[in-house]
Every structure is written in C-alpha cells, then in structure tokens.
C-alpha cells in the first residue's frame, strides 16, 4: 500500500514540524516523496499528526467481555486516532502468564487496528504477595510491569519488585496511592465528600505513596512511570524528582484535566474514577504541570463499564470512564485553554508517550512506522451513547459537544479508520 496524504497541515512534535505539506507512506513506513500512490487522501484543512499513543486503555479482555470486547475497543481506539495503546494487566485473569499476554497480542494483531502493548502484572494475580516471571513476560511482549489499580500494600515487596525489574531493565508503572489511607474511600477527601457523605481519600494518600516510590527509585534506580497523578502536591514532587535526575516519568488521565470533585453534582456515578476527581486547585495544577512538562503526558485511562456497573449508588458504582474517543477533543480543549502551540499539545499524546513506551512511533520522519491521525481540529463532535464505538458509554461528558474530529487513522501505512 502506497499512501499519499496531500496538502494537510503536518504537525510533528518530535521534529517541531508544523507546516502544510504532503506525507507519503510505503511498506508501512513513512517514505520520501513518490509519484504513483495506491491511494491519495486529500487532507486540505486537516491536521496530519503522528497517531496517538495512549498509555492506558482497558480493552477488557480477557475476562470482562460483557463490558467490552477487543473488537469494540479497538474500533474505538482507531476512531479516536489512537494507533498505539498500553493496556493495564488488571484483566481476569490478570496478565501474569506469558500465554495470556501472547494470546492478547495475537488477538489484537489479527484485528489489525491499533498496536497493543500489554503491561505485565507486577505480582502474581496482582495480589501483592509474589513477583511474576518478568523476564518470561517480557519475552512474551510485556513492555512494562504494573499493578493496574490494585494496591500493593507490602512496601518490602514493592522494593523487591523494583530491584528485580531494574535487574532486567524493565520499567515499572505504578499508581501512587497509600492503600490504608485510601481504604473504603470513593472520592476526594474535602468539602464535596463531606457534603455528600462520601468516604474520602485524602490528597496525602497520593503524596505519601509517591514519596515512598521516589525513595525506592533512589535506592534501586529502577525506571518508574507514575500513573494518573491527581494532586497538586504530586506534580511538585515529580518536578523535583526530575530535577534531581531520577529515572521517573508520569502521566495524568484526560478527565482529571477537566473535572474536579464539584462535578460529582448529585452523585453522578460517571464521575466515580480512580484516582478520584480532586479539588479545582489540583485540577489546575495538573493541567499546568502537563503544559510545563512536569507531567510528561496524558492518557485516556479508557475504562469501559457497562450500565449495570454504573447504575448503582455512587460508592458502589464501578470506577472508570470511557475515553479513547474523547482523547483528541479533550486534549485540544486543554491545549487551547493553556494557549499552547498545537505541536506542544499533540506532543503529550504522541512523542512524549512514545519516549516512555520506548517505541519508534509517535513521529513523522522517513523510516518511522507510518502511524498517523488525520483530524479536523474545528469539526464538532457530540458525545452520545450512539456516537461512541466503545461498548462503554460511561462518560461524564455525555451530551457535551467538543471540537476535534478524527477523519482518518493510519496504522503501518494502512487506513484503518475513516470518519
């Protein structure tokens, strides 16, 4: 397949390119100019960007096929311009055996849509009691190891896990949340939780856990990616840790850039998220930290939940929100609010996550994999249950209208989505 994308605004954050021009792809890679294309896409008025790289998308396989299937969620990914995604190991059973990882990768590959990078379980069954065979899992295709949202209470085991992962050079992706302080909590410990009578998780549940993680990184020099920051305090700690030269990075979920605990309104279970939505001050600090680079990148933290899981009282509702198809519009909205150049905005979901994932995608240079998202930044998208390809219709943004519509998604030189 020889693809010619013509006359679009090509924005490549990695090379700081932002100019109208043509992009060519052949044999799955970005190519130099050629004349005989199999297909020409007229990208006039559209932005041609590297395909988006999402560091957290739950595909719900294996185990939760009633919530979503690999097919539905891979459709959602490419409809959102996402060409690579990392999936957390908190499936059922968890991704703690090479066979499971292998099967997931092969199923995903057969669908030939987005590239899937599984995260292996850090501990067996995610129980926090015994280390998994990381080297085996690494060979099967795990790019990093993680507990997903399952707490690891035993700090000694966490220390051992980081030592072991560092031995083989594997990064460890961790949520920073003290399990004891977060016990029973379902919302940010603050005025809103007090008013609504919801059990709170204090901000220091995150900063205390992050302090522990950073100390262990100092001790082990393990590469750690801290997932889903939610507090202003954690942003500052990450800023200092990076200044200190620790091998750490972090991300924030797209919802936490736009929402805060006030948005719980009258117990909107769509706002039941992990970590919880925190105060306005935290939200603003996250958004600013991401703009300034203290936070490396953002992700959709895509978590499809079926209606039964959300049609429950707030505390009993299953946490999570669907996000793959909202990633672009919500990212553009964040970038516009901070008056960022488009290349900087897009970097947070292309070149920055590519660096963390250690992949060659996320850039438009000759020889790089031809993964592209071609979108109309001004076109309106209305978020409705019908419009979402994901089987999860659970989002606090149902009914909202945003700007930014994906027109074409290209993976390895093939057009996998046209909208």
């Amino acid at each position, binding site marked *: 397949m020889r693809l010619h994308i013509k006359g679009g605004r090509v924005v490549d954050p990695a090379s700081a390119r932002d100019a109208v021009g043509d992009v060519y792809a052949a044999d799955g890679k970005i190519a130099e100019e050629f004349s005989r294309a199999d297909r020409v896409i007229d990208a006039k008025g559209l932005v041609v960007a590297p395909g988006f790289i999402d560091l957290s998308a739950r595909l719900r396989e294996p185990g939760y096929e009633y919530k979503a299937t690999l097919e539905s969620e891979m459709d959602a990914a490419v409809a959102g311009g996402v060409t690579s995604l990392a999936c957390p190991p908190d499936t059922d059973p968890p991704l703690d055996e090479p066979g499971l990882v292998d099967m997931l990768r092969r199923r995903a590959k057969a669908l030939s849509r987005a590239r899937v990078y599984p995260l292996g379980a850090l501990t067996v069954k995610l129980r926090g009691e015994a280390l998994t065979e990381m080297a085996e899992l690494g060979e099967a295709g795990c790019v990093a190891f993680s507990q997903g949202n399952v707490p690891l209470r035993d700090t000694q085991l966490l220390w051992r896990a980081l030592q072991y992962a560092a031995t083989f050079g594997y990064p460890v992706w961790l949520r920073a949340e003290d399990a004891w302080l977060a016990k029973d909590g379902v919302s940010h410990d603050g005025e809103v939780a007090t008013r609504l*009578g919801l059990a709170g998780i204090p901000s220091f549940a995150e900063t205390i856990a992050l302090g522990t993680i950073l100390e262990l990184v100092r001790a082990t020099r393990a590469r750690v990616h801290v997932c889903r920051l939610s507090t202003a305090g954690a942003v500052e700690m990450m800023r200092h840790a990076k200044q200190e030269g620790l091998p750490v990075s972090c991300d924030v979920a797209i919802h936490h850039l736009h929402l805060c605990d006030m948005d719980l309104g009258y*117990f909107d279970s769509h706002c039941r998220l992990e970590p919880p939505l925190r105060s306005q001050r935290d939200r603003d600090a996250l958004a600013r930290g991401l703009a300034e680079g203290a936070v490396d990148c953002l992700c959709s933290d895509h978590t499809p939940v079926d209606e*039964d899981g959300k049609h429950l*009282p707030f505390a009993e509702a299953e946490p999570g929100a669907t996000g793959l198809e909202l990633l672009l519009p919500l990212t553009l909205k964040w970038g516009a609010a901070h008056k960022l150049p488009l290349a900087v905005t897009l970097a947070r979901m292309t070149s920055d996550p590519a660096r963390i994932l250690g992949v060659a995608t996320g850039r438009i240079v000759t020889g790089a994999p031809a993964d592209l998202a071609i979108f109309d930044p001004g076109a309106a998208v209305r978020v409705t249950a019908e419009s979402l390809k994901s089987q999860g219709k659970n989002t606090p943004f149902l009914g909202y209208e945003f700007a930014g519509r994906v027109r074409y998604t290209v993976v390895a030189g093939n057009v996998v989505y046209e909208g």
Partner: protein
Amino acid sequence: MQRNPQLNAHGELQHLLSIEGLPREVLVQILDTAESFVGVTEREVKKVPLLRGKSVFNLFFEPSTRTRTTFEIAAKRLSADVINLNIALSSQTKGESLLDTVANLSAMQADIFVVRHNSSGAPYLIARNVKPHEHVVNAGDGRHAHPTQGLLDLYTIRHYKKEFTRLTVAIVGDILHSRVARSLIHGLTTLGAPEVRVIGPQTLLPSGVEALGVRVFHDMRAGLKDCDVIVMLRLQNERMDGTLLPSAQEFFKHYGLTGAKLSLAKPDAIVMHPGPMNRGVEIDSTVADGPHAVILPQVTFGIAVRMAVMSIVAGN
C-alpha cells in the same frame, strides 16, 4: 450543574432527598403544614383522607424499626396503603439490583417510595429512574442525609424557640458518620440560625466541615456555652472498635452530656436526640429524662412532619 432533582419544573417539591438546596420557602411550607397535621394527630380520629388509594412503599435496605414505623404511621394517617419491604433480608441478597427492585415495585403501582439505604446518594439514583407520578422520600442514605429527621428537628426547635434568627445550636458527637447532623446543619443555615456549632473529637469530624457553615469545637464545655439548643448524636457501637475512639468511657467523659455540662448552656436550653439513645455513652440519664429534654416530643412531631412531606410531594 443539573437542576436540583428534588424540585419539579415549577420549583415544587417532587421528591424529598436532602434539605440541602431546598429554598427557605419550601422548608417553611413543610413546617407550617406539619403544624396543621399536629392538630390532626391530637384528634380522636387521627386520619385524613388525602392519600386515599395511594400506595406508600417503605423500602428499607438498611434495618430500622423506628424510622420505618414513624413513616408507616404517617402514611396510614394520610389513609395511604403501606407496604413494608425489608430488602436487607430479601432480594438484594439474591443479587437483584436496586433499580430492578424499584422497577418491580413500580409495576405494583407505587406512588411514594420511602427509601433508606446505607449508600450515600442511593435515593437520587432511584429518583432519577422512577416514573413522573412516583415520588421518593429519603429516609436516610449513608452518611449523606436524613431530611425528615432534620425537618422534625427544625420543627421541634421552632416549636420551643419560635424563631431561628437568634439561636446558637450545638450538635455534639459523631458528625463524620451522621446524616442527621448534615441535614440539620443545612436546615439551620437555610432558616437563618446565626451560629451552628459542631462538637466532637477530630476523628469524628469530616474534613472541611467548616465549609458547611459551622464552628468547630473540640472542647465540649466551650462549645456548649450559651447554647439555646443542644443536639446529641447517637454514637454507633461499631465506632468504638478502637480505630476512631479508644473507649465509650473516655468518650462519655469528654463528649457525654451531663447535668454539669448542660448548665453551661442557656437556662432555657433544650436537649434533643434523634434516638435511639445510648444512655451513659452520649447522654446521662438525668439529662435524657430531665426538664430540658424534648426527645419524646421530637418523636410526636416526627409523624406530623412525615405526613406533611408525603402529602406535599404526592400532590406535586
């Protein structure tokens, strides 16, 4: 933000879910109506035909004999048919979802659901999913709200103190887990009480409670000084497992209401308690049975307040 889900398009009370966010006029309307129902409850025939032919479903997902009984009496005095469902023991344990249960009862022609649930916000979920002619009355959800208790507390205060605008009210004990405290605080601030105090150890006060418009005291003697109204909260036994409080004895010593502490309040102060009381834990018997206590009138007024609430929502 969404429209207050308890009010219909005309701003009338369609469901009673929380005192928070209710306009002053609505609160006053409920209290005034309750006053008329107090007259009814003093008659020989204590029944009026308002809700004749209507069905009130008492949906208690959390056991409570007392509150359920007062709702039952109130509904019967309005001539409604009352069906008591102790869900804690039935379908929920068989895996039926909350909304399935409600849909089933709705198919049995319900008019009012009186809901108690241990999860904050559960009545909101139900109210969002009932038919337009069905009404939801919150009989206590998690730590969030217990609006009819709050209203009967307000009624009792108004009955004895006439107006709210000069009152100092102290709420003492486990504020953290108390839906009664939250509802009363919102009611008092809406009706213009100038000083509402909460008194308790830090472990029993929710974070940011000052944002509700209250003054926080950890020293009960200081907190009770010159109070017109003292509301003692029930301390649940499960709070005394050592993680929030070391012992009932130590709690009583510092936060139990005794005659000596009561004497720091105004001479005509009234003492309230939502019941059931733990004598010797949060309140001394001499106080509970003493001349300042209005704990039994609270129960009587509670029936009239619940009659008022049900007859107002069912008519809107």
